[in-house]
């Protein structure tokens, strides 16, 4: 059958978080050197051990080269042209109560749908369900405020910016920092270790079920600024926590680098659920601008029966390079990875996971849904490794790709290494195209083309969406609708 219309036809897409906040910044000049690192460390008033840790990472980084194996294409990043520290100007550097936060910043987060007033936040979610969401709001290089700290502290939960954690809980930071993602892990992790400026820190004490969802909202605002933040979550024995992460950036013609590190530690019987909705500015239809999202995320199920579950919905960024992984050290521990990655226009994504089975009877599940539209390129890259001694370990992997139009691409790179004979690994992969047939069927029932695409895509992603916390589910449907706007014509 001849198809006279081309469903890969584009219009301007509508990126709603693309505004710039006009706020005076305290920034260091572009460029990277030991002096810059010392400056960052002194600005944050860090103890000696942190500075040394940074400098060691930096010296290691100097010897490393950027990875070239990912299925992405971009000009080399000029690391001397990046601003490594930019903070909204404030009277002093101390962590602020909400009243002291610049109203301009509050307005910015408000506009992004992130209420930082605790009463408003509670009112907002009360109507929906659940006990509410605590937010750590990170703006360029610093955390501007963290909500519900008091209420969480009543349960012994520590939720604060990384900078505060270094000051107030140095023993925990020292014990766990770099224990899952060592500074030498990879090029961008090393860079992050050298220059990270802030991020979120969470500690859930033994046996505590965190009484509310925790979240971090990352906002890049200043031009030329890279964002390098670190998140460290420790779930002590028998504790539970659900963590959400969101992010946006203004529309700018030049690319900006976001190189984060997330480390999760789940001790015996602990559970961490980590959900991300990634909506960095993706660049325009011709591929100008957008965020390079080069991120290392890894969790260690360090104790028996521990569980770490990653859910990610990746709709933004010019380039996404990210593999949230699980090291299944404890016997019977469980790792999960649920992912939807959408690339439209000229976006590129190389994303997936690593499941490293070390303990006995460890189990992992990987469900990956890649959607490519426009000239987008989408690669799933995954490693399932069964080490000798991981008796009875099991993995199930399902990778599905959906193509919209004929100018996009989907690739799957599954790596499987099995050293344990009693381990089982299952892998299923499909690639399908939103057919003219499916679209016509919907339209013949009166459903418009864009709504039809959105419904088909939502159906495709269903297994992942059902893993998302309530707070995100609605947001994600809206976001997918926006991201696909103009992908049919």
């Amino acid at each position, binding site marked *: 059958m001849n198809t006279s219309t081309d469903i890969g036809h584009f219009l301007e897409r509508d990126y709603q978080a693309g505004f710039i906040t006009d706020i005076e910044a305290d920034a260091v000049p572009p460029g990277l050197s030991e002096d810059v690192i010392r400056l960052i460390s002194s600005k944050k008033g860090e103890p000696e051990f942190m500075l040394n840790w940074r400098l060691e990472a930096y010296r290691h980084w100097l010897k490393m080269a950027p990875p070239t194996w990912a299925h992405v294409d971009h000009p080399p990043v000029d690391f001397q042209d990046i601003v490594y520290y930019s903070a909204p100007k404030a009277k002093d550097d101390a962590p602020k109560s909400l009243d002291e936060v610049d109203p301009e910043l509050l307005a910015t987060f408000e506009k992004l749908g992130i209420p930082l007033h605790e009463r408003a936040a509670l009112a907002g979610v009360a109507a929906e369900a659940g006990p509410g969401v605590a937010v750590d709001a990170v703006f360029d290089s610093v955390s501007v405020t963290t909500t519900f700290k008091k209420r969480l502290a009543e349960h012994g939960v520590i939720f604060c910016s990384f900078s505060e954690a270094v000051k107030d809980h140095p023993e925990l930071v020292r014990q766990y920092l770099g224990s899952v993602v060592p500074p030498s892990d990879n090029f961008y992790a090393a860079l992050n270790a050298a220059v990270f400026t802030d991020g979120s820190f969470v500690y859930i004490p033994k046996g505590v079920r965190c009484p509310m969802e925790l979240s971090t909202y990352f906002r890049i605002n200043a031009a030329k600024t890279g964002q390098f933040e670190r998140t460290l979550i420790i779930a002590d024995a028998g504790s539970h926590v659900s963590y959400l992460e969101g992010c946006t950036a203004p529309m700018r013609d030049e690319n900006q680098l976001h190189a984060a590190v997330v480390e999760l530690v789940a001790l015996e019987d602990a559970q961490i659920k980590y959900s991300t909705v990634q909506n960095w500015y993706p660049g325009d239809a011709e591929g100008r601008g957008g965020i390079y999202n080069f991120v290392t995320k890894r969790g260690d199920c360090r104790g028996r029966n521990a569980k770490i579950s990653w859910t990610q919905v990746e709709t933004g960024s010019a380039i996404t390079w990210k593999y949230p992984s699980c090291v299944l050290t404890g016997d019977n521990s469980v790792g999960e990875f649920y992912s939807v990655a959408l690339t439209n226009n000229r976006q590129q994504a190389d994303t997936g996971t690593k499941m490293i089975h070390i303990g006995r009877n460890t189990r992992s599940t990987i469900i990956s849904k890649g959607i490519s539209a426009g000239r987008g390129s989408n690669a799933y890259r995954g490693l399932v490794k069964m080490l000798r001694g991981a008796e009875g370990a099991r993995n199930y992997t399902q990778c599905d790709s959906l193509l919209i139009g004929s100018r996009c691409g989907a690739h799957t790179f599954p790596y499987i290494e099995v050293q344990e004979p009693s381990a089982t690994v299952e892998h299923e992969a499909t690639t399908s195209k939103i057919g003219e047939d499916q679209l016509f069927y919907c339209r013949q029932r009166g459903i418009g083309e864009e709504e039809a695409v959105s419904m088909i895509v939502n*159906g495709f992603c269903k297994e992942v969406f059902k893993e998302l916390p309530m707070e995100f589910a609605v947001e994600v449907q809206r976001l997918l609708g926006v991201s696909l706007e103009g992908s049919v014509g």
Partner: protein
Amino acid sequence: MPAMLEIKGLRVAVDGKEILRGLDLTLNAGEVHAVMGPNGSGKSTLANVLAGRDGYEVLAGTVTYQGQDLLAQAPEERARAGVFLGFQYPVEIPGLSTAVFLRAAVNARRQHRGEEEFDAMDFLTVVKGRMKELGIREDFLQRAINEGFSGGEKKRAEIFQMALLEPELVLLDEIDSGLDIDALKIVSDGINRLRAPDRAMLLVTHYRRLLDYVPPDRVHVLSGGQIVRSGGPELAGELEQSGYGWLHEEAAPA
């Protein structure tokens, strides 16, 4: 009052090849017409072009639906205005729940008629009532649209959708293909329930079988992209006797 559907001199090409070569047909409200013909005669082309599917190039002719130019409208506009196509091969859409899909379809139609859209609860009440009438199982709504349905289930689902959408013009493209006799009876029963004075139906079929259960008012024989004979229901019987072989002699170009 204008006819429900009036086709005049319709010529349609697919991939540059002319399939319909000057087709005339008039269908009035309350009537059921059958279009029969051998494979390749243009039956499915007719159904698809009326529904607005891509890939069909209209070379000449007009199609008027309730006094409006049908060919000028997008497929979803035609559907909202009451044109329903029951597909020969209904597609599967994995993960898209039938309930979500049907609510969007019903609401598109309601919006077009200036009626208030159904919320989820109202919709469930309406749809469950209809399911009961037609003996559709409860889990149908939770299943993904047509996914994993047998051939018979898919056709029954088409008829159910038709009942729910209450179209004014029904086009059924080989709705009887691939059905065993029990399924055919159920599907036919569903069609007969919807016969109404304000509704017209066009049944496209290769076999007379369907017409035994859904007796048409008129039968048209399509061959070489034109209607070569029209008659009453008895024409279907004649065709059954003589097959389509005679058409080649009769309709062959001089």
